[in-house]
């Protein structure tokens, strides 16, 4: 299967004053196949949002390659990069702040086309996109502050899709929405995926939401990938202790609640070896000395752990 997005050895570090560096993303590699939805899950500070922006080169990653349909974005500059960006679009968490409050909806959705210099059929494509996301024509002249959160998110999605990109990265797109609106937007994303034949990367901290929409799920902790597996497999038989703790923390999860203790270590000085070892109930000496590598333990199911739970 052809891979639409190939991320290899992505590293993103920020200087943090006094010679220290924030290790936001450390050597993350993953693929997204054509027509696939990859869920990226983790708690705050794991680096999932940084991954999303690094893929778009906003800001440029410290090292690593990002290939979209074979073209390496990290090697592109200026005009070529701007042209390549059209294939990867981003939908943000806060629907209202991701739209310019001084512009009307039609202008917002038309913006990608205007930037690309597309003149013909612009109005038609914009109204087709608005209709596809379930917004009536009356909304076209409104400004973002006149719309609800759910409607703003639909506008964001229309804007992302109007250029028919290859892949759309959704960074916590439903986290600020009401529960009843979440379901509408999740269904909408599924529909759009089929209608426009795009691949999705769906980033969220909400495990149930991620499971619902994803084909495969990747779990991140403190800048590293812990586990990657098909959605149903991951939740049915999680192998990494962090994944197990995450699933057990969900209020509606069946079974005894395995509380995750301790605090997230600082990304300025991540623990040696396995970064999760400071909070892992199964940690041993080896975990501090040797960093586990993401290896496939079962078909399609990879874990980065020395002692994965069978």
């Amino acid at each position, binding site marked *: 299967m052809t891979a639409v997005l190939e991320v290899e050895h992505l590293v993103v570090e920020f200087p943090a004053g006094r010679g220290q560096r924030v290790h936001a993303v450390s050597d993350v590699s993953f693929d997204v196949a054509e027509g696939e939805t990859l869920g990226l899950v983790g708690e705050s500070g794991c680096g999932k949002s940084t991954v999303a922006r690094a893929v778009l080169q906003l800001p440029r990653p410290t090292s690593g390659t990002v290939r979209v349909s074979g073209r390496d974005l990290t090697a592109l500059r200026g005009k070529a990069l701007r042209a390549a960006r059209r294939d990867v679009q981003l939908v943000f968490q806060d629907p209202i702040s991701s739209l310019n409050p*001084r512009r009307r909806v039609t202008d917002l959705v038309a913006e990608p086309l205007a930037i690309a210099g597309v003149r013909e059929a612009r109005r038609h494509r914009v109204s087709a996109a608005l209709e596809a996301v379930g917004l009536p024509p009356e909304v076209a002249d409104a400004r973002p502050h006149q719309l609800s959160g759910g409607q703003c998110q639909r506008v964001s999605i229309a804007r992302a899709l109007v250029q028919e990109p290859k892949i759309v990265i959704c960074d916590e797109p439903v986290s600020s929405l009401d529960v009843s609106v979440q379901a509408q937007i999740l269904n909408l994303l599924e529909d759009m995926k089929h209608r426009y034949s795009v691949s999705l990367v769906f980033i969220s901290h909400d495990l149930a939401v991620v499971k619902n929409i994803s084909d495969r799920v990747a779990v991140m902790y403190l800048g590293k990938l812990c586990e990657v597996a098909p959605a149903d497999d991951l939740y049915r038989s999680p192998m990494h202790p962090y994944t197990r703790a995450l699933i057990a923390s969900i209020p509606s999860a069946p079974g005894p609640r395995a509380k995750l203790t301790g605090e997230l270590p600082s990304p300025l000085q991540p623990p040696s070896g396995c970064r999760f070892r400071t909070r892992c109930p199964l940690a041993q000496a080896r975990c501090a000395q040797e960093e586990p590598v993401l290896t496939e333990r079962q078909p399609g199911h990879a874990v980065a752990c020395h002692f994965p739970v069978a």
Partner: protein
Amino acid sequence: MPDLATVAPASGAPAPDASLPTAGRRRALGLSFWAPAAWIALVAFGAAFAAVLPLKSPTRSDFAHIAAVPGTGGHLLGTDEIGRDILSRLVYGARVSLTVGLVAVAVGLVVGGAIGLLAGYHRGKTETVLMGIVDVMLAFPALVLVIAVTAFLGQSLRNVTVAVAIVAVPAFARVARSATISCVHRDFVTAARGMGATTWRVLRREVLPNAVLPVAAFALVVVGVAIIAEGGLAFLGLSVPPPHPSWGSMIYGGKNKLADGTAPFISLIPAGVMFLTVLSFNVVGDHLRSRFDTRAGVL
């Protein structure tokens, strides 16, 4: 309008989201806006058409009526300490005040705003260098700077305007920079860059329209400050040279008669006019700011 909200979605079609929530109805502009706006319009009108209005000469003295009380001898607002008509001097003086107020602020806005915009968008070295220059300018005592400028360039309306503009630039740079920074952080700027927009396009279409609001609100307040600044300079004899009238120099001229209580109106009338004008600019600025602040959400 068909109530789309109740229509069950057809299979495959996304559930539509039809209704527009009622946008908060903006409070109608009342007297508190129109009264000061009318005053500003009046002052501006007077300043613009001073030459064609039926006014007495602002520079010729009427020796029959020195320090005349308002209403006597055909002088609606009286005469000053050497017999010149106060009303016409007010109107001609408005030219000076408004020119300095509006032009100096406009220059400060454009130059300072551009500096702040670039510093706030690019950050890093650009910001350090630009804001360093701004900080140096701000650290300079404004009064000394203005005195130096006028001493160097000479006294004229143009030079006073330049001097006040120079002092206004760093203030605008700082405000513009912080407005830009708070704008650049927001997702829609990242979204624009993610869509492949050039830096110039992002600045022009995304950052500028949003950053300009707090800067414009600030500008209206600075107009008031600039008018007072000119008044102070005129009082010190650093503004337009006599016999050209200016509100500040009128206040200065009447100070003796104010001190001994014989004709306080000579100073108080221009002071009152200056007060009303500055107050009007502030109030109008407040109204416009609250009207265009789209982030004030409806409950």
